[in-house]
């Protein structure tokens, strides 16, 4: 199963080999189409989230060039930094009780968070998806044991699990970042496992999989070529939401003192914990900047995840068709009273139930502009 991913990169469509370039671009467009077509709140969340996340990633990637000093620098050119200096001058965000430069710590902290997040997501994605596919496809006792273990892990308080796992992996080579990433991985494997297993179960029974099996395809081929590409669609939303959770968990571990040590890398949760005594002495800067950084980073990923969820989730997408433009005069009761219904039914012959579920107090709904023409005409008559 080790070469599973390479197999998946190969185009699955029949035209894949004929025109790989065009097929690839088409798929790319198809993948991003929902994002471009998003509207309303989903659009707002997606683009705000993408902007925040992009900012976070840029800071993280270019940290060495953005940060004025190193993450563990307490002196510059032989001159020791002042202790707990307020923002301004050489230290834009001030300095901490350990003589660290707060701005540098915050910028380097973005890099740490990104590293841990990427590692954790890749680990848990790989293990969770693989186990979910195997478990769902083959079933049997393997499935039963895995489900039991995963359900148990899932029921466990996630932070406790991460703490215990951080303890367990504390001697892993690679230092604090790998340890933290592994601890977070343990927490998120069950989520991928559950989702992937559930969709594998349904994909397994699909006609095309049955056909492939009848043609004598090996399980590896079936899983890699047919099941995986159908199952993987449910993953992006979980991945972005998990990325947000990973940052929160890392900060939580750091805050409790079980995360990355300050000499290894800058970590926001640790900085925040060290800043608690400063708050009592009216030194707001040591806590505020890492705190804001944590919230912004998590918020960015969460907004992308929520936006994607709205866009990709079919039950939410139906809303667009249901959108009906109601003239401002219409009061809630007028639309739904029995008196109004006979007028609507013979006039249009459409199901009036659709309108009833809509909340009439939404003039903003017309902004989306994709209400069906038949629906837009109808309530105007009704308003008289």
């Amino acid at each position, binding site marked *: 199963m080790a070469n599973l991913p390479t197999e998946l990169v190969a185009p699955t469509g029949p035209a894949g080999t004929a025109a790989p370039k065009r097929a690839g671009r088409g798929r790319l467009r198809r993948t991003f189409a929902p994002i471009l077509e998003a509207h*309303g*709140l989903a659009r707002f*969340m997606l683009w705000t989230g993408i902007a925040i996340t992009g900012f976070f990633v840029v800071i993280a990637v270019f940290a060495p060039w953005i940060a004025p000093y190193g993450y563990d620098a307490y002196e510059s050119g032989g001159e020791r930094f002042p202790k707990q200096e307020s923002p301004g001058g050489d230290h834009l965000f001030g300095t901490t009780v350990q003589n660290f430069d707060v701005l540098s710590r915050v910028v380097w902290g973005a890099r740490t968070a990104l590293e841990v997040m990427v590692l954790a997501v890749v680990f848990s994605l790989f293990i969770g998806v693989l186990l979910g596919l195997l478990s769902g496809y083959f079933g049997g006792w393997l499935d039963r044991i895995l489900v*039991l*273990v995963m*359900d*148990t*892990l899932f*029921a*466990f*308080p*996630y*932070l*406790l699990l991460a*703490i*215990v*796992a951080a*303890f*367990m992996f*504390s*001697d892993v080579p690679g230092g604090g970042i790998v340890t933290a990433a592994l601890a977070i991985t343990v927490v998120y494997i069950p989520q991928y496992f559950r989702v992937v297993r559930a969709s594998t179960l349904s994909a397994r029974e699909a006609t095309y999989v049955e056909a492939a099996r009848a043609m004598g395809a090996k399980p590896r081929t079936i899983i890699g070529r047919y099941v995986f590409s159908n199952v993987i669609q449910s993953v992006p939303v979980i991945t972005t939401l998990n990325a*947000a959770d990973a940052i*929160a968990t890392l*900060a*939580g571990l750091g*805050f*409790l*003192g*079980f995360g990355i040590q300050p000499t290894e890398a800058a970590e926001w*949760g640790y900085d*925040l*914990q060290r800043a*608690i005594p400063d*708050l*009592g002495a009216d030194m*707001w800067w040591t*806590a505020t900047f890492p*705190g804001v950084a*944590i*919230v912004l980073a*998590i*918020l960015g990923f*969460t*907004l992308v995840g*929520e936006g994607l969820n709205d866009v990709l989730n079919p039950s939410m997408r139906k809303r667009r068709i249901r959108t009906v433009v109601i003239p401002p005069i219409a009061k*809630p*009761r007028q639309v*739904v*009273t*029995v008196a109004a*219904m006979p007028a609507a039914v013979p006039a249009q012959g459409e199901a009036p*139930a659709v309108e*009833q*579920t*809509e*909340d009439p*107090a*939404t003039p*903003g*709904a017309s902004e989306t502009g994709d209400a069906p023409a038949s629906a837009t005409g109808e309530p105007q008559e009704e308003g008289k």
Partner: protein
Amino acid sequence: MSMKSGSLGRYIAMRVALAIPMIFVLLTLVFVMLRVAPGDPISASSGGAKMSQEKIDELRAAAGYDRPLIVQYGDYLADVVRFDFGTSVSTNQQVSDVILEKGGATVTLATGGLVFALLLGIPVGLLAGRFRDSAFDVFARLFGIITYAAPVFVVGLLAQQLFATKLGWFPLEGETDPLIANDIPATTHILILDAIWVNDWEVVWNVLWHLILPAATLGLLIVGVFIRMVRVNLIQTLRGDYVEAARARGIRERDVVVKHGFRNALVPVITVIGLQVALLLGGSVLTEKTFNWPGLGKQLIEFLNSRDYVAVQGLVTFIALVVVVISMLIDIINALIDPRVRY
């Protein structure tokens, strides 16, 4: 259909039977993670102090760590069945005594957080679902996302800064003012109940006053889940045939929404409470640390810091058991309320 009571009994029996393998797997996982993990508990708990090899061996033998793992595992399971969670290496206390002593504060905090989340989440969710796509709905949705995104300790520190340090409305930390509750006899080990028991209302108010900030902080963590759940449920309920039928019969819109919509939309909230127990317990570790609340979470962190593996294992085992038992109870309550669950 004719044997309704029989099917409820069967459901409960099935649910309890399901919990047993789950507890077994949970205990095994805890054991594997904490005992098979690299690092020797005894030398770790000494905090880096040099001990002679004989001393280490002696302590290992006393704690039973020199025996084969499988024997230790059997002993561990047998102990847990007897509710014996071991003896702390660092403080020499029975872990079950620690649980009794500190558990009350955690129960108080978690209950406070849950009550706060319900009081805020249900009305906001109902309004958001009723006035779907309105400005309020959008606001409620973003509120839920932001409160979920902001970590407990950031919200907690912010609340402390604003309401305790700047405005002085609430105390900064702790469960009571110092010394005030020393005379309260421990009957239930939940301070607020003990204070009510002996009619000491000053202490009751003092605890409540201390509780508000941490409970609100913890409650904000899960309030988004309630808002979303209630909102979606109400929207789905209002699409139901019986709601349409009620409207067709000319019942006032307000009565339709309140009597037919709200009531049915609130049933699944009980399930969500069950699912949030793990989140509440995890969040309470962070909240207790932030607000210096003398509960199990704070105790667990202290045990972890002193590398007291035995006590950590005991506490984690206990918390795991609590989660399984509560989720089982919630499922059973759910089956009692909503007959559809049983099938």
